[in-house]
């Protein structure tokens, strides 16, 4: 089969590319360049006067202790969610990969949370843990556990971590299961005959063979925590109490939309953009190198 199309001139191929380029340009490059441009501007409090201030917004941002605090929160949040959701999903996938009765039902049920919208997931969890009306909050109070995500910052962070983890496990589970199923049975059997115990087989054979999947998921999970948890945070804590659950993305929204500081907000989104581009680049480099066994 011939995969290369041959065109007579240069007009037609460019013409055919145009719709795609148009979409990418309008929906990605234009807003992105707008953000970069905005990040160099400073608006006065009434929105009457805009002046070009070069890197003033960035300087201000990096001088702000609050920004570093948000970075730290995001980092902790990302490590916890990625770590928890990856390890739990792997555990579940390893169990599901065994030939068990009702494996199909089990798998289907595990995939469901992924279909729940982030905001809905947030609302579900806050309902359960809301100190005044949540079922679980009520039960915990009866056991004498003092846990209040509305007042205690760490409690709030933990709640957001749980909700985000719960939501992401399905996705990770799917990839882990697919990864596990692509490992030839005979290889595992050979290892069993070679005297490797179940645990040793997992650490020396299964996990190394799964490492491309793990790596891919680590990157995807970090991106997820950075961006897609916005809905959960907005529905559950709005970044509070006292910014304990404020992630970088939530701060962009908070400063720009609610705080009206468009310049700083734009600068923050540019920084985020750079982070994601870096992550994606790393992922592409490694995936190309490591995936082909």
């Amino acid at each position, binding site marked *: 089969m011939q995969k290369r199309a041959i065109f007579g001139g240069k007009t037609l191929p460019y013409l055919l590319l145009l719709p795609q380029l148009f979409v990418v340009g309008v929906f990605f490059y234009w807003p992105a360049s707008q953000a970069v441009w905005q990040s160099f501007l400073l608006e006065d409090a009434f929105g009457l006067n805009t002046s070009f201030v070069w890197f003033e917004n960035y300087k201000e941002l990096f001088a702000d202790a609050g920004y570093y605090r948000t970075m730290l929160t995001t980092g902790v949040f990302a490590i916890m969610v990625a770590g928890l959701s990856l390890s739990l999903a792997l555990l579940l996938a390893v169990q599901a990969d065994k030939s068990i009765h009702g494996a199909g039902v089990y798998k289907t049920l595990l995939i469901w949370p992924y279909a729940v919208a982030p905001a809905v997931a947030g609302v579900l969890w806050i309902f359960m843990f809301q100190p005044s009306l949540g079922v679980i909050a009520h039960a915990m109070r009866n056991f004498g556990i003092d846990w209040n995500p509305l007042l205690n910052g760490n409690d709030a962070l933990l709640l957001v971590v749980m909700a985000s983890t719960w939501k992401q496990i399905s996705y990770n589970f799917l990839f882990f299961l697919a990864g596990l199923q692509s490992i030839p049975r005979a*290889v595992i059997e050979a290892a069993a005959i070679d005297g490797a115990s179940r645990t040793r087989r997992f650490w020396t054979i299964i996990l190394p063979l799964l490492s491309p999947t793990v790596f891919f998921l680590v990157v995807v999970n970090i991106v997820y925590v950075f961006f897609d948890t916005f809905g959960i945070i907005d529905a559950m804590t709005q970044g509070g109490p006292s910014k304990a659950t404020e992630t970088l993305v939530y701060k962009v929204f908070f400063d720009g939309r609610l705080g009206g500081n468009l310049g700083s907000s734009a600068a923050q989104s540019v920084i985020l953009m750079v982070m994601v581009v870096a992550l994606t680049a790393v992922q592409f480099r490694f995936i190309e190198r490591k995936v082909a066994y």
Partner: protein
Amino acid sequence: MASVELTNIKKVYPGNVEAVRDVSLTVPNGSFTVLLGPSGCGKSTLLRMIAGLETITSGTCKIGERVVNEIEPAERDIAMVFQNYALYPHMSVYDNMAYGLKNRGTPKSEIEKRVREAAALLAIEDYLTRKPRALSGGQRQRVAMGRAIVREPQVFLFDEPLSNLDAKLRVTMRLEIKRLHNRLNATSIFVTHDQVEAMTLADQVVVMNAGKIEQIGAPGEVYKHPASRFVASFIGAPAMNLMPGRIAEAGSVETPGGKLPFDAKRFSASGEVEVGIRPEDIRTADGANGVPFKAELVEELGATRLLHGNFGTTPIIVAIPASGTQYESKEVRLTVDPAAVHLFDRTTGRSLAR
């Protein structure tokens, strides 16, 4: 090294699928036993039960003096070579071979020594640092065998190890396995559907069909004295000619092509039987004696020539040496050595040999 003894082994899968039904078999110490049969006959299942990769529904499996039914594969002191090699893709050739020894806590110097020895034996010393994906099919199969050898197990199990190789390489590897066995003299059980592999490698061939053993014997034995119609038609290429017959008088059987004498000392038969004659046991005769035969089609194989035609009303194949005479569309006469006529029970398919 040890013998393997299977007694009344059965394997029933969920849904009442009987993969292996009542198999008893002894593999003597140092023997090279080949399980031969068509796909789905239960030979691989049987091997996997010996390895401990499948549970045994009923019966006992003994390796040496030990009943291993409930013993983990790792503890059975066996090594297995798989059809698709089953090498660990993320490990170097050296690590692939060393893995089993490492798991058992063998000292490093000992591992090194054994891996080097096995590598030398299999001529893969130059590839020890490579990953399996950088090797050819034949080299991978060698590594898989090396992985088995370094363990110095009681029993070697081979699950169709040559069927993923191309025809030429298969012949080479077959010879190498044979040579290796002659040298190590380890008890080996080899599963294959290829009768040539079975005949050339085995000192004991176990022919299986539909979960049962049809015949156990030396390669020459199963060829010369097939115990059933199935063995007769499965072993030998081209397959044995089979036709209905009726014993009218002592020592002679009535076939569609005419009367054929048989060795009455070997067979005790009467009434309706199934007659089997190997293509290579049929001779062409010039005289007026014998059954008239016209070759409708001739296949030239170089050393031999296959004549296709009708023996009375039954289509048969005759294999003759490819000498000068052309037989196509020419009437000839065929004779059969009475000693080469096999008789089988028409209903059970068992040989009627005494």
